[in-house]
């Protein structure tokens, strides 16, 4: 294909030297131009002996590096006052970043086809953990095992290790759907195969995460699942139907959910004149931060709003601090970075040599894309506040480890992706 040869520079063939047994894949095209040989040598430095997609890898590392810098800038004031240590968040995040990059590189050498076999165990473990959160958090209310966070219970603590099963669930959904779509490839158009099982899985995960009072997690799982079904071949009419049902439900919810829900919408539309019972403090502080940045920003580290005005600036609202310090220019640069990463990972996924790899990669792509878009839209008050973290930026060990792990899978997919593949 013409399009394939145009972008072949970035795609790797399996090198002829020291191919691991597991990764023994079919060789690509037979041309051996001198130019390609040079580039291959260069990429070997990064490739752990394999050919991973260098642009994708570079985009990941750049976003991660920028994310760490901005996390430090956004968090040090708040963590100084609340944790008595300016470096509290950056130390943790840097640790998880390093561990995550190591994990990513390791996973990138792990043949993703193995996940076919691991679907059931992973699904089982994930469901078990989600159940555990619900059981210990909602039913038994044991704070030691399922520490509360506001009204939500999303954490599971096993000894000193704390993590969010819902973060794992996002990947699990991707994995299950990629698996199901790849084995149902021919029957996706049917209701029985293309809708029912998927809805069943989505319902199970959705309800479990919903029971954690983790709305954003539920929403993201539904969106990722929906997107994968759409690409995987489920008939568009079911989406029209589903979206219609959801829209009617939403309207009913707003109309009959009482004036509080209307107030929330009003508060979102005009956060500076919100009804008294709608707390728009975080949104207002976020907009103060964004507005303070102007076109060029106050400069790195110069945010005022991170000084205990904007709540949790290292988490969901880190993008507001980016807007304040780097201005509209910096914010758009970050969005461009996300855009090229998402586009590249989609591209790599589409080049996967089989449908499972493609769907797995696309699922991961959608996850990153949906989270980044939703987070930035929330912070800029484009959509109502839902509490979604920004990939690569927001503080959070589980999310970062999972993200980098997923990036490892994408990189692994890139190793075996083939431009000549049809």
């Amino acid at each position, binding site marked *: 294909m013409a399009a394939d040869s145009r972008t072949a520079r970035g795609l790797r063939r399996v090198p002829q030297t020291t191919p691991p047994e597991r990764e023994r894949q079919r060789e690509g095209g037979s041309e051996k131009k001198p130019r390609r040989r040079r580039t291959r040598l260069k990429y070997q430095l990064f490739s752990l002996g394999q050919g991973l997609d260098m642009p994708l890898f570079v985009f990941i590392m750049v976003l991660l590096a920028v994310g760490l810098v901005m996390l430090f800038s956004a968090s040090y004031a708040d963590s100084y006052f609340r944790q008595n240590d300016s470096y509290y968040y950056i130390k943790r995040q840097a640790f998880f970043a390093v561990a995550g990059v190591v994990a990513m590189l390791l996973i990138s050498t792990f043949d993703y086809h193995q996940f076919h076999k691991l679907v059931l165990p992973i699904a089982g473990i994930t469901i078990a953990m989600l159940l555990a959160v619900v059981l210990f958090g909602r039913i038994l209310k044991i704070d030691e095992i399922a520490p509360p966070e506001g009204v939500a219970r999303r954490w599971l603590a096993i000894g000193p290790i704390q993590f969010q099963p819902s973060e794992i669930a996002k990947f699990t959904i991707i994995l299950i759907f990629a698996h199901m779509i790849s084995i149902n490839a021919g029957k996706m158009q049917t209701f029985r195969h293309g809708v029912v099982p998927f809805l069943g899985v989505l319902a199970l995960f959705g309800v479990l995460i919903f029971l954690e009072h983790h709305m954003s997690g539920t929403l993201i799982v539904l969106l990722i699942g929906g997107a994968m079904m759409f690409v995987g071949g489920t008939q568009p009419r079911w989406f029209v139907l589903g979206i219609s049902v959801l829209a009617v439900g939403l309207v009913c919810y707003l109309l009959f959910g009482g004036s509080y829900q209307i107030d929330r919408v009003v508060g979102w539309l005009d956060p500076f004149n919100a009804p008294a019972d709608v707390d728009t403090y975080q949104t207002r502080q976020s907009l103060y931060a964004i*507005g303070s940045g102007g076109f060029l920003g106050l400069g790195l580290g110069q945010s005022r709003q991170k000084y205990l005005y904007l709540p949790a600036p290292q988490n969901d609202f880190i993008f507001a601090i980016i807007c304040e310090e780097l201005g*509209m220019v910096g914010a758009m640069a970050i969005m461009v970075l996300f855009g090229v990463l998402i586009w590249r990972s989609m591209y790599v996924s589409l080049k996967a040599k089989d449908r499972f790899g493609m769907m797995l990669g696309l699922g991961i792509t959608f996850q990153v894309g949906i989270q980044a878009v939703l987070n930035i839209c929330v912070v800029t008050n484009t959509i109502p506040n839902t509490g979604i973290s920004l990939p690569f930026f927001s503080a959070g060990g589980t999310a970062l480890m999972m993200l980098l792990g997923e990036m490892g899978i994408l990189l692994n997919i890139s190793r075996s992706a083939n431009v000549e593949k049809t």
Partner: protein
Amino acid sequence: MPKGFAERMRSKAIGLTAALIIGGFGAATASLFHWQIVRGEEMRTAAMDQSLRSTTLPAMRGSIYDATGTKVLAQSADVWTVVLEPFFVAGDENLRRTIASGLAPILDLDEEELYEKTGKKDSYYEVIKRKIETDTRDAVNQFLVDNEIDSGIRLIDDYKRYYPYGRVASNILGFTGMDGNGLEGLELYYDDELSGTPGRMVSARNGWNLDMPFEKEQMIPAEDGNDLVLTIDETVQSILKKYLAEGIEKYQVKNGGVAIMMDVNTGGILGLSTSPDYDPNDPFTVLDERLLAEIEELPEDEQDEAYSAALNRQWRNKAVADTYIPGSVFKMCVGSMGLEEGLIEETSMWTCTGGVHFDGMKDDISCWKHEGHGATTFREGLCNSCNPWFMHIGDLLGAETFAKYREAFGFTEKTSIDLPGESNSIYHSVDGLGPVELACEAFGQNFTITPVQMITASCAIANGGNLVRPHVVDRVVDQEGNIVKTADTTYRRQVISAETAATITDILKQNAESGSGSGGYVMGYRVCGKTGTSEKVDKHNEDPTQPMEYIVSYCGFAPAEDPQYALLVFFDEPDGDACGINPGGNAMAGPIFSKIMEEVLPYLGVDAQYTQEEYDQLDLVSPSVVGKTLEEAYSQLESMGLTYSVIGDESDLDIVVTQQIPESGASVPKGGKVVLYTEGYDENGIYVQVPDLTGFDLANASYVATINGLQVSVKGASVDGSMVTLQSIAPGEEVKLGTVITLTFAENINTDGHVELDE
């Protein structure tokens, strides 16, 4: 994988991803444009507003200087306010206890109360002590360093007012309140000038109201207040204060007193001392012993109220805020009116029969001299302070003309002196001035004015007829030394002609030398003066069982040939029984007037010019003969016309004098004696007790002094009939033989009419 199917998947994935990126980030970019660019300024301002805190920076209050420009009467110095920030310490029990137990003794606070305050965990600002001074601040800082406390206690700059001369000018200066605003006196009247403009410090604070680490503070510096340079001269003021206090004590004055000295030409007040007074450094303490004694006598439940009443009384400027009956001092004005209108001349005659009868009155209004002065000229009448003479002038003037001049002399309006709380005078309107009222006002009775009004009117006579505005502040100077404002002499109006003024001046000079005002006579200084003894008739009428109370005053100016300085001294309710002197302006206020003039005039550069008679009375300066042989001493003393006596061994003319009384440099009367001490005198035998000479005439006083081995130096007019009112050494004190006692003589006659009005 079927190709068509894969293609569809591919295009769906690309479409979905593109929609997500373009739609999502596009919408976000639109939002960013809205919030960062369109409403960016609004957001920026709102963010600034919530993070900026503005602190007021106190302006340094201007200083107050005396007329010399070198003596600082009031100034502000740095102090600090200790602020506790409980938020930072509330959680630490040990720290709370450390702070409470450590700071309580340093700041003189109750430890438990302080401990309670440290527990207010929601508070960032608790003032625990105001206006601590440098040493206390150092102690606090040391405590913080020693205990490694770096947050929770803050010291904030402030200023405190100091009055280096203490009580000397308290009633002029006033004082300031806790927040530095003027509450009394010049501090109040010139508060706007002195206080300056406070600055502001705008600093960025984080969400917990703490300083942002890197934000620059924006300072609008405070504009310090302007300085005042007064017409008050600290030396003059101190002299006034000293002698006023002496009079208050000597005459057992119950209701305080006033001494004002004024430049007759400019209206500048050189000194203004009132009693009771206070220490402006500590205005809330009653210092006057008489007031304190009065409070003590009250039942306990009334003492608090009485104490605050006493505070108010001691803060009052009696010279401005209180009115008094001027009495016969006012006659200088009435005489001027008569002369000015041409109704009388210096030589006009009138016969005093001892009283004047008015229709409808049971008793005559009498002269102080009940048998009458007989036929006298106007000059004699003023020197005699003859009441009927002045009732006669009042009659000649008529109510309307009298009222016109009364107004012209400024008795019916405020002088607009630059001190707060000036009181209005109380007098009969033209319509209310019936023959009796007119007669009484004509000799100074039955109306009240402020002391400042009286001295201002006397200045008009002294300076050739111009009524000037009295003032205390000479100029206002900013911190760069530029003059912001000057108090130029303000001539309010010409009241009387220069000729009239000169005539009255000349009569008053005679009056002070040999008339009823001789108590104010100052040797060598040609003073002009008029006495006043007014009866507090109203008070007496209210409670006739109490004896009549008097106001004794003396008002005059000097030197007669070119008057420069006017002085008014008055005592409110002296206790004649207790001090052994009949209440009278001449006997009581006169000597104080004399002493002040005698000390102040040389300081102000007015030279003494002695008449031959006065020169003869002048004391000599005792020579130094200690260390000389008796022979040398004898010849030296003889050459000066002094006598001598020897105590101790005088067997040989070569014996050396070891001591002399009066000592070298002290004054000794002409023809007086110097007592020489030589080796071997009896230490115990040479001391004598000073006798009480008050009330003695010159001959008797000299005799008693001499038999006690003391010598007498005479001050004041020792005219016939005058007697000792003040003596330089208090009775009962032990002094060495030969010591010179200065006696101040004054005529002791109540020269004012006893008026019993039949209302």
